């Protein structure tokens, strides 16, 4: 991913978006993103928690509709680039069976000024929780498990509406 010296008003920018089984962390995107014109880089890591709703969690099993998820994630990152004054958006979502402390989501955004970075970062996370075809099942110490709903399923509507 090349760093780019984009002019102050540029809307074009760097997008990285992938759903992967490989280990992810914010560090590499944090190092690679942001040109010399960018004053702010914001990196979010979502990590597996060792408990939820009072129960001890042994692992989170993440499952994706990979082909669609890749496209939705790229759409969301592209939207953030268009709607916010940011120059680079990188988002990686890991799938598979992940132990507590493991990073499941990375969102890194670079911008001239910090306000846009916070706005774009939250937008990416909120939208992927709403639209990304990824599911997770919480697995407990006693071997039982439960599928979680982080949000109601994207309303079955025209995809143009959905992209809004």
């Amino acid at each position, binding site marked *: 991913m090349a760093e780019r010296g984009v002019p102050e008003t540029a809307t074009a920018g760097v997008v990285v978006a992938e759903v992967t089984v490989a280990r992810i962390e914010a560090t590499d995107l944090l190092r690679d993103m942001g040109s010399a014109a960018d004053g702010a880089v914001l990196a979010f890591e979502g990590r597996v928690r060792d408990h939820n709703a009072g129960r001890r969690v042994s692992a989170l099993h993440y499952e994706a509709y990979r082909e669609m998820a890749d496209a939705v994630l790229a759409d969301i990152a592209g939207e953030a680039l268009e709607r916010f004054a940011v120059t680079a958006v990188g988002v990686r979502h890991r799938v598979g069976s992940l132990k507590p402390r493991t990073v499941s989501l990375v969102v890194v955004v670079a911008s001239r000024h910090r306000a846009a970075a916070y706005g774009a970062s939250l937008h990416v996370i909120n939208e992927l929780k709403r639209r990304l075809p990824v599911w997770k099942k919480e697995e407990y110490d006693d071997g039982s498990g439960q599928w979680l709903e982080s*949000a109601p399923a994207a309303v079955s509507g025209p995809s143009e509406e959905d992209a809004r």
Partner: protein
Amino acid sequence: MSQRFSIQVRLFGRHRESAGSPTVRVELAAGSTVRDLRSALSAHPAIQPSLVGAAVAVNRAYVSESEPVSEGDEVALIPPVAGG
């Protein structure tokens, strides 16, 4: 127009688990929509209970109930998502 075709529906999460398979096959009449697809899926006892809360994707995009479903389309049933 009563020609029928068979289509494989991809299942995920709770649907995949309760059906015991990553796909289920349904038969649809030519000219069917997502609404017709849902009717056909509701015949599957493993899927029916959580069908209402699920969205449908055709060719990797969320679609409305009136969207046509044609032979060769990539169709998936999308239970409530939980990314992040």
